[in-house]
């Protein structure tokens, strides 16, 4: 993986220097963040269609908050504060699993349960952060919350590669079954689908991709990229094909544009914020198109 990456980078840098590609690409961190965006975009967009279908938008928000606590725990345990992956993954996975376990056991409605877990995780995070601020500059946390492409390194890219690969495999293999389980669990079980197992697997997918996106998009904003592109795609599409591919395209474009434009125009904004603003633009545009199509049905055929 690293060797492929190392062989592509010099080529891109040479092209950037000779003027074929934007000049900023000659910097390693720009290249890193664009590679991350190109991997993350389609994966988040694709998983987003499932998040929207299964109505679990707020769940990913809760995981994002848990990521903050995960980072705080990592710093306390002495992990590097720029990439405390062990604590991040462990805490978020335990958190996600605990949430779905409680839901299955108590039959509590999902929104109540998510609200409870979200608050607990924020409370724990807030308490631990008090200790953390004594150790490191609290602004380090901005990077975790809102994303910072400047700090994306090879470790982050490798984590992203592996996690995306796992998510793509699970996502493609179980897509239909995950959707059916949410449509009618009884019907899904009659058809031999292991509904509970897929529930856990899906939560695991959302959790690990959220953690892997923390560096680029930020813990608080990952949810937006899981929901907004899929919602925009829903505005335009009539079938699952459009839904999935539009969503993946919107998400990828948001990531790339959100990284490139602030850099080219030298606007100092966090990458996560810029990415989500681009995604929001797509949502506004597609909503307008949808309204126009409703008002003038002839446009729908174009």
């Amino acid at each position: 993986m690293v060797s492929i990456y190392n062989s592509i980078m010099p080529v891109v840098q040479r092209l950037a220097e000779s003027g074929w590609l934007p000049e900023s690409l000659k910097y390693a961190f720009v290249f890193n963040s664009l590679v991350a965006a190109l991997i993350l975009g389609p994966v988040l967009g694709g998983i987003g269609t499932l998040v929207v279908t299964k109505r679990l938008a707020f769940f990913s928000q809760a995981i994002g908050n848990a990521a903050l606590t995960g980072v705080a725990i990592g710093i306390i345990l002495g992990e590097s504060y720029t990439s405390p992956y062990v604590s991040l993954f462990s805490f978020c996975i335990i958190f996600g699993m605990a949430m779905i376990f409680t839901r299955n056991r108590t039959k509590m409605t999902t929104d109540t349960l998510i609200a409870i877990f979200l608050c607990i995780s924020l409370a724990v995070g807030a308490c631990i952060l008090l200790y953390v601020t004594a150790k490191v500059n609290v602004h380090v946390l901005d990077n975790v919350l809102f994303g910072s492409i400047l700090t994306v390194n090879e470790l982050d890219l490798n984590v992203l590669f592996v996690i995306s690969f796992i998510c793509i495999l699970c996502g493609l293999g179980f897509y239909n079954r995950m959707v059916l389980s949410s449509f009618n669990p009884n019907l899904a079980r009659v058809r031999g689908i292991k509904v509970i197992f897929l529930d856990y697997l899906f939560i695991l997918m959302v959790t690990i991709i959220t953690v892997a996106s923390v560096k680029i998009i930020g813990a608080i904003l990952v949810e937006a990229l899981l929901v907004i592109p899929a919602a925009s795609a829903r505005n335009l599409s009539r079938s699952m094909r459009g839904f999935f591919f539009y969503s993946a395209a919107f998400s990828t474009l948001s990531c790339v544009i959100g990284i490139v434009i602030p850099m080219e125009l030298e606007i100092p904004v966090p990458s996560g914020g810029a990415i989500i603003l681009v995604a929001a633009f797509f949502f506004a545009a597609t909503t307008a198109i949808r309204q126009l199509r409703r008002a003038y049905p002839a446009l729908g055929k174009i």
Partner: protein
Amino acid sequence: MLTKNEDPPRGPSICFEMVGLCLSNITILQDVSFTVKAGDMHCLIGPNGGGKTSLILSLLGQMPHTGRIAINWTDGTTIGYVPQVLDFDRTLPVTVNNFMTMICQNMPAFIRTKKRYKDIINNALRLVSMDTKAERRLGELSGGEMQRVLFAQALIPFPDLLILDEPGAGIDRIGARVIEEIILVLKKQKVTMVWINHDLKQVRQMADAVTCIHKQVLFSGTPEEVLTTEKVFQAFSATTTNVRRDSP
């Protein structure tokens, strides 16, 4: 038993023995015992909240019931299940074809429908007269059309045992006729059917046997025997007495 001239039924027989179900300390079913004969169209009737759907879910092995439910399996017996509703966001861009594809194959429905499933899906949809609406979104279907699609999915693969959870509820006239016609075809093929049905007229016309459930079996037998005005009246007026008994 069967005479030599008759085709053996393709569906299994089902025997419920002292089936009980208790969820969160509330008794849903108690001592339910009756038999569904192989190849029979067996209707379940009874007041709402009487435990019919719970009994069906117990039969499908999805409830922690007590007692015994024996399905007389042969190799390769397939079960079709027609649920009451699908729970989904009506604005989702999922077409009838997408839904049927998800039922048939593991390859994501957004990629494509495999060639070998296209005809199967089309035939199933044609049987319920929904083939012309295959590209409609699920959210745009009427209640009756949705029921027909749910019926179509239960026909893939062709079932030996078909379990229907009130497919008639909220259905339009065309839909009801379409479903009646298919049920008659399945009856000829001697598929065993367990059908929760509120339409007593339909039960009288089509069912081979009928069981009335309200926590317990109130009566069970052929429609001619048991669907007398007095018994039906008793069954549905039993609702009030039993509910009173349950409340603290």
